[in-house]
């Protein structure tokens, strides 16, 4: 994955481009199959299991991992932590691409994607939490687009438009935090309707709170994780300020992540107490639950704290990657593993390889577009015409 390929005159056959190219070709092939033969041809979905990994991964994990946008911009512009300024643009870009891909993925998952505007234009089912999710995701995608647009406008030389948008920064940030609070929590609240299907250790009236708090963890960890990848592959695109502030961002976000993980651990324990589900911890689902909250919540909280105390960037980076994996585990548990736990194993869901391929395809498209943008637009460096103010 090097940006050499974007330089004219050099070979385009880098290992990254070859792998990405193959994935994209397979993805396009399955896309055609999906939209001509229907969901049944490419998925293992069934009447018992109407939601698979296109919801569990592409929607739930995708939205959670795109939380870096609102977390970073809130830290910088609302909480006044200006030393994180250089992290805002990459986080906004990741958030924007993440949400855009979520919407693309939904087009694959719903039966009649051309009707996706119906909840707004034809008939509003306002008692549905999915309505809230849809409304907030649509609005927030717009907000992220506007928040991202100054970078593109600087690149295109649209100075006046860019200056107008920059003036809206605070307003957009507040709007973004409100919308994110709502839909991050609503994704958890989607499952409140099904206490009879979701295992009691994961079902809780606090599900919306769990999803919201863990989205902050996901956002913080994703900024660190993605920042370390960017530093590895796009260091040439980073200016002095970005490189200078990078360590501060990793340490600051690591400290915040450690604290929020600790808080999340506590409310998860409160969740068990609320349902008085202690006796279930001894079952096989209980052991899996313990692995989740000890291995993917308590452990990273501890390692983040050590990394920050010792100023060990390496520990923090690895912990960030582990925490991101933990978010995937949690969302999969709620949506797939602990959902329908009462059914016999023959009726349980396991994704078809083509479902996995589409998810991989969409992530790959995201990386390609990310690379296209950061190698061209002022994301990791300040534009020379607008120094020190983006």
């Amino acid at each position, binding site marked *: 994955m090097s940006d050499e390929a974007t330089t004219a005159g050099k070979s385009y056959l880098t290992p990254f481009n070859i792998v990405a190219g193959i994935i994209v070709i397979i993805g396009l092939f399955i896309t055609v199959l999906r939209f001509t033969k229907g*969901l049944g041809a490419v998925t293992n979905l069934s009447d018992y299991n109407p939601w698979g990994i296109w919801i569990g991964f592409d929607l739930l994990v995708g939205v959670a991992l795109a939380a870096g946008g609102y977390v970073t911009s809130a830290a910088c512009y609302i909480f006044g932590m200006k030393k994180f300024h250089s992290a805002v643009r990459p986080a906004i870009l990741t958030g924007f691409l993440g949400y855009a891909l979520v919407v693309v993925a939904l087009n694959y998952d719903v039966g009649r994607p051309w009707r996706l505007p119906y909840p707004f234009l034809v008939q509003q089912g306002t008692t549905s939490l999915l309505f809230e999710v849809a409304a907030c995701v649509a609005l927030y995608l717009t907000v992220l687009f506007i928040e991202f647009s100054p970078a593109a406008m600087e690149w295109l030389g649209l100075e006046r438009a860019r200056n107008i948008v920059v003036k809206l920064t605070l307003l957009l940030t507040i709007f973004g935090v409100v919308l994110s609070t709502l839909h991050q929590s609503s994704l958890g609240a989607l499952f409140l309707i099904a206490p009879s299907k979701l295992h009691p250790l994961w079902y809780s009236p606090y599900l919306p709170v769990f999803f919201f708090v863990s989205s902050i963890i996901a956002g913080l960890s994703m900024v660190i994780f993605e920042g370390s990848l960017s530093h590895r592959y796009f260091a040439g695109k980073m200016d002095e300020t970005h490189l200078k502030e990078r360590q501060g961002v990793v340490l600051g976000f690591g400290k915040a992540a450690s604290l929020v993980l600790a808080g999340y651990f506590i409310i998860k324990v409160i969740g068990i107490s609320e349902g008085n589900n202690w006796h279930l911890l001894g079952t096989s689902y209980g052991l899996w639950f313990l692995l989740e909250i000890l291995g993917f919540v308590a452990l990273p909280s501890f390692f983040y704290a050590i990394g920050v105390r010792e100023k060990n960037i390496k520990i923090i980076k690895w912990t960030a990657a582990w925490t991101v994996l933990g978010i995937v585990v949690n969302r999969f548990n709620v949506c797939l593993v602990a959902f329908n736990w009462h059914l016999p194993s023959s009726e349980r869901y396991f994704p078809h390889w083509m479902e996995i391929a589409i998810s991989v395809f969409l992530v790959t498209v995201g990386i390609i577009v990310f690379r296209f943008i950061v190698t061209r637009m002022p994301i990791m460096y300040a534009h020379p015409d607008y120094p020190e103010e983006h």
Partner: protein
Amino acid sequence: MSISRRKFLGWLGAAGLGTALSKTARAASNKRFDGYPQSSGVLFDSTRCIGCRKCEEGCNRVNELPEPDRSFSDLSVLDSERRTTAKAYTIVNRYDASSGAESPLYRKVQCNHCLEPACASVCFVRAFTKTESGAVTYDASVCVGCRYCMIACPFEIPAYEYNNAFSPRIMKCTMCHPRIIKGLLPGCVEACPTEALTYGKREELLRIGRERIRRFPERYVDHIYGENEMGGTSWLYLSGVPFKDLAMREDLGVTPAPRLTSGALSGVPIVVGLWPVLLTGIYAINKRKEKIEQQEKEQAVAAALEKAGAEAKAKMTAAMESAEQQKAKAIEAAVGKALEEAAKAAEKSASDTQAEDADKKSSEEDS
């Protein structure tokens, strides 16, 4: 004043009626919904069901569903447990009761037409409607195909046309809504040869159910499934064995589905109203902190400057003073010196005069 017994009882009755009426009024508010009055339902008596699958056939015919994979007269399909599918709104399953009393047992599965349906509450295009007839109907013309209704349904009823690429629908029993509004019986009820299915007003069906339980207590479990489950359903069940032996869930509770999400939904406007205030507040506090910091910095600089200025002034004054003193001293010294010189000069001139005088004297004496 004396009150007759009759009068007293009359007042008591009126008071009692008043209390009852006010209760009715409260029940009519949106806090609790007991179903549309006069709405219909079906009572399924599992003790009468013989597993003939005639109801499946009748349903298939009146709803014009696709041909089944195996014919309705083939009873071997009962060997495995089935569920409703996109091709079958209703199916019959066979169960062997653990108590072994009246094996085999049969149960008909179809939409229960909840009084407050989960599917209708979670649909973001309101494709489902609880009609006043009692039926929960579905409108495919607005359905986006998100399948959240299938996630939400506690009875696992809605099925989906996964193999339809261009117009996939949710498929589920409609209680034959188009037929019942015309005064016809639902297809399954009409086809049942043993009167295991009874169609009627839900209130009436509950009365019939209770009556059967009262008259044959040894034949029935003392419970009408669906009277209160998930807030009540239009489809009601009688059984001779515990309902869990018919694979019916006994842990669903009596809370209507919409109440499970009402708390989360009520949080939405609060967040919308409060978050901007909170966030602007945090922003303002930080802004103010920065401003105060700036001011303090400026003040400190000003104070430092002032102090330095004062010190310089003092130094200057001291220097001036010492210079003045030196000057005065110099003048004094100069004056002293001048006086001394003057004195000396005076002395000298005095002695000169003396000498002159002496000279004069001597010269006078000489002459």
